[in-house]
């Protein structure tokens, strides 16, 4: 399951030491200055939705998913997943990290089996691992170490590791960061197809507007930090999506560019 309800969620970091900006003579440190990152976010995602969260770099998108995944606590407000308050990380809500989260001292097989390591029936476990390695197209690469794989293959391996535990929600924090353009396009398509197949809630962070429009069932646009929800709307366009053939998609794209303050990109 993967219904997500975010209510009045705010987060600010307390900087322990920070040089005073104002030249107040002593040039000393001020303690406890607050840095607001998320500002009263209200969102609701349905089970099985692929939600793309779009926003300027450093606006707090990653902080939001880290809170949703239970890695960080919010300052106020609440997050309910399937009606239950999030109180910590769980293998039901798996995170795919911005830069590879594979454990570099383990092979692909060992990485993928991490979530099912305690399974009693070893044959069933091996079957699950192999099945998921197959889904992401890494059969034959099971015994390689992450550094022996290309960037795209590393992301696939991490995806397989997430899928193996059959999670209710997948968090993907800019999973294509640092990949070349073609690999990016291919992985985009694969994730769309995989999502159609498994219908799990995926919360996908990106700063690529086209990517969000092409992939998402729902789009959320954040403002600059502290992030507020600028826009939240369903994307009811059939796949594959093509800006040149779908006028309303193309119009929406223009609108989002202008919401984000870009007028020259098209």
């Amino acid at each position, binding site marked *: 399951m993967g219904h997500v309800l975010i209510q009045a969620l705010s987060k600010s970091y307390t900087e322990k030491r920070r040089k005073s900006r104002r030249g107040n003579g002593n040039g000393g440190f001020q303690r406890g200055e607050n840095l607001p990152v998320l500002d009263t976010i209200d969102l609701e995602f349905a089970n099985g939705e692929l939600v793309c969260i779009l926003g300027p770099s450093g606006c707090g998108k990653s902080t939001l998913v880290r809170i949703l*995944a*239970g*890695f960080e606590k919010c300052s106020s407000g609440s997050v309910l997943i399937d009606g239950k308050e999030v109180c*910590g*990380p*769980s*293998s039901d*809500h*798996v*995170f795919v*990290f911005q*830069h590879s*989260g594979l*454990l*570099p*001292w*383990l092979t692909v097989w060992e990485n993928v089996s*991490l*979530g099912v390591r305690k399974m009693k029936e070893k044959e069933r476990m091996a079957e699950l691992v192999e099945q998921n390695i197959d889904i992401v197209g890494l059969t034959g690469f099971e015994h390689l*170490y*992450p*550094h022996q794989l290309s960037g795209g293959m590393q992301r696939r391996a991490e995806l397989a590791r997430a899928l193996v*535990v059959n999670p209710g929600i997948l968090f993907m924090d800019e999973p294509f960061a640092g990949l070349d353009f073609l690999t990016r396009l291919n992985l985009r398509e694969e994730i769309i197809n995989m999502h159609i197949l498994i219908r799990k809630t995926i919360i996908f962070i990106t700063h690529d507007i086209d990517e969000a429009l092409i992939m998402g069932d729902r789009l959320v646009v954040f403002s600059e930090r502290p992030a507020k929800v600028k826009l939240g709307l369903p994307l009811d366009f059939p796949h594959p999506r093509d800006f040149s053939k779908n006028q309303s998609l193309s119009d929406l794209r223009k609108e989002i560019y202008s919401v984000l303050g870009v007028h020259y990109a098209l």
Partner: protein
Amino acid sequence: MSDRIKHILLPLLVFVGAGFVWQLFSLLGGWRTGVFPTPLQVAVSMWGLIANGTLLKHTVASLFRVTVGFYLAVLLGIPLGMILGWWKTGQLAFNSVIQFLRPISPLAWIPLTMLWFGIGDKPAVFLIFLSSFFPLVVSTVVSVNHVNSTYLRVAANFNLSKVETFTKIIFPAILPAILPALRISVGIAWVVVVAAEMIAVKSGLGYLILDSRNALRMDFVMDAMAVIGLIGIGLDRMISQLNKIESVSWGAH
């Protein structure tokens, strides 16, 4: 020239060259050969020490002490470093005392060590242990502090227990950083064993040096020095072999 030959030939050439320089100095330096033996004399006397088993006996004695002392330091130092690296309160509490003890040379402990442990292997082993223990603890703490937070999040995400996080995440994550620390501390241990053997024992390469000095056999002193150098290289090589294990060497990529 292939790389492999280069790796052997070039250092060998430098060694031979150094031998020539040595020969020149001992011939032209104006010292008696009893005070500054030539390489040839050293080689001949070394052959003698090898043939009668003296050299082997002393080498084994030194290696034994280094092995015991160093293993003790590894077995106690690395787990302690891991615990302190993880348990921040402990780190805060114990860091100062470790930093306080660390710069005290193992040689400064010699008088106390002799009173505590008497004569024999024990004081030497204890000194070697001291020399490696603190550097290992400190570098383990530092490397635990630097474990990539993503790995810890992965551990939390897949519900790894505390023990599993220790053994399956933190330990392998620090291995690449621990390896250089092991190399450095085995080097220190090997330096200290010679000093330790100049007191309280009647065997080992350090003892051989001291004993040969008393007998005014500088060729034997140099024999012992040569063996110390060779074994030093050997120990370093042995530990860097660990780098060939894939699950250790990932940090290099």
